[in-house]
C-alpha cells in the first residue's frame, strides 16, 4: 500500500469517528453564543420560597435546588482547565445571579423555565439577540412538579437543566435523552450534569 492510500484510509477513519462522536453527544450553545457575564465562579443563587404545598404534597424546593447547585459546583479546575463553578446561596433572591421562583403557574405545558436578563432588567433573547446576560430568572412550575409522579430526582434535574440554560446551553433533541439538556423533563434519563455539560462549561468559560 502506498503512502497516499494509507493517508486516505487514516482520514476516512478519523472522519467517521469524528462524525459519530458528535452525533452521540454534543452540547449545544445558543445560536449567538451568549453566556453569563462575569462567569460561573463566585456567583449566587436564591429562591422565593423554600417549600410549596399542592396536590397533597409538600416539596422542599430549597433542597432540590441546592442539590442541583451542588451538582454544578462539582466542576472544579483540573490540569487542563481553570474553570471552577461556584454558586453560593443568597437569602435575598432579588439580587442573586440565579433567581429561582416557585409557584403553580398552571397547565402551560412546561415544568421549568429560564429567562435571561441584562443588569438593567431587560430581557435578552439568546436565540435571536447577540450579547450576554447578567442574571437569570428560573421558574419551577409546581402545578406539574408537585405531583407525586414528578420525583425529587426529576425536580433536581429540572433545576439543574435550567441552570444549564442560565449558563448558555441550548436544549438537546434527537437521541440525547441521556444528557441534562434533553428537552423533556419527563423522559430525561439523567438527573445531573454529564461529561457533555462539563466539556461545554469548560469551553464556554
Amino acid at each position, binding site marked *: 500500500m502506498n*503512502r*497516499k492510500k494509507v*493517508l*486516505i484510509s487514516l*482520514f476516512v477513519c*478519523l*472522519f467517521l469517528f*469524528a*462524525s459519530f462522536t*458528535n452525533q452521540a453527544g*454534543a*452540547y*449545544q*450553545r*445558543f*445560536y449567538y*453564543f451568549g453566556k453569563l457575564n462575569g462567569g460561573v465562579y463566585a456567583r449566587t443563587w436564591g429562591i*422565593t420560597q423554600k417549600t410549596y404545598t399542592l396536590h397533597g404534597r409538600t416539596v422542599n424546593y430549597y433542597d432540590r435546588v441546592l442539590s442541583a447547585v451542588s451538582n454544578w459546583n462539582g466542576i472544579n479546575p483540573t490540569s487542563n482547565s481553570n474553570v471552577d463553578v461556584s454558586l453560593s446561596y443568597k437569602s435575598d433572591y432579588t439580587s442573586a445571579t440565579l433567581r429561582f*421562583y416557585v*409557584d*403553580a*403557574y*398552571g*397547565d*402551560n*405545558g*412546561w*415544568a*421549568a*423555565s*429560564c*429567562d*435571561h436578563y441584562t443588569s438593567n432588567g*431587560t*430581557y*435578552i*433573547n*439568546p*436565540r*435571536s439577540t447577540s450579547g450576554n446576560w447578567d442574571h437569570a*430568572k428560573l*421558574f419551577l412550575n409546581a*402545578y*406539574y412538579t408537585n405531583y407525586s409522579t414528578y420525583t425529587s430526582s426529576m425536580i433536581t434535574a*429540572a433545576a439543574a*437543566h*435550567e441552570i444549564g*440554560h442560565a449558563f448558555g446551553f*441550548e*436544549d438537546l*433533541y*434527537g*437521541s*440525547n435523552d441521556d444528557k441534562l439538556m434533553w*428537552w*423533556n*423533563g*419527563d423522559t430525561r434519563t439523567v438527573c445531573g450534569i454529564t461529561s457533555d455539560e462539563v466539556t*461545554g462549561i469548560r*469551553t464556554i468559560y
Partner: protein
Amino acid sequence: MINKKSVILVSVMITLLFSVTGCSSSKNTAVPDNSGGAISLSKTEGFANVKELKERAEEIVRLKVLSTETVEYGEKLFTVSKAEILKVTKGKLVKGDVIKLTQTGAIVDGQDISVSGDPIYRTDDEMILFLKKCEVPYAEDTYRSLGIDDGRFDVKDSKVIARGMNYGNESKADKKKVKKSDSIDEMGSKDINRLGFTVEEFEEKIK
C-alpha cells in the same frame, strides 16, 4: 520524502476534519427565524406527528385572534388572547364562539418574549390549533395548543405552516418521502411545510 501532492492531500483532509469537529459540537446549526425563543423551558409533553395531536386534542379549530392582553403572575409574563372560531374540525366549540387562549411570554417593548416556535399571537393572526382546556391561575376558561408549538399551525397566504413537532427524529413519513395524497397521520412539521398544504387541503386531511 514528502512530495507536494501529499502535502496538499493532508491539508485538504485536515480542513474537512475540522469542518466536522469544529462546528457541530458547540453551535446550533438551526438559523433562527422570527419564531420567538427568548424563553427556555422544560416541556412536559411533545408530539411528533399529526396522529398524536389528533388523538389528544379536545378541540381542533381554525380561529382568528381578536385581541391580546399581557398578564403577570409570579414574576412571569403570560399572554391571554381572545379569538373567534372560524371552523371546527373536532370538538364541542362552534363557529362564531369566542374563546381565550393562553401563552407563556408576552410582547415587551415591541420585543417578542416567547417560547421557541410559539411567538406571541397578534391581532388578526389566523391559525389552526389543536387545543386542550387548561387550568391557569391568571385567567379562567382558557385553552392552549398541545405541546405548546406542536399543535400550532399558522395560516399565511392561505397556506398552513407547522410551528412545532421538531424533536430531531425523522418522522416515518420523512423517511418514506410522502406525497401530498398520502395520509397526514404520520407526517411531522418537515413534511407538512415541504408539501405546502392549503388551509382547505389541511383541514380535509385532519378530519
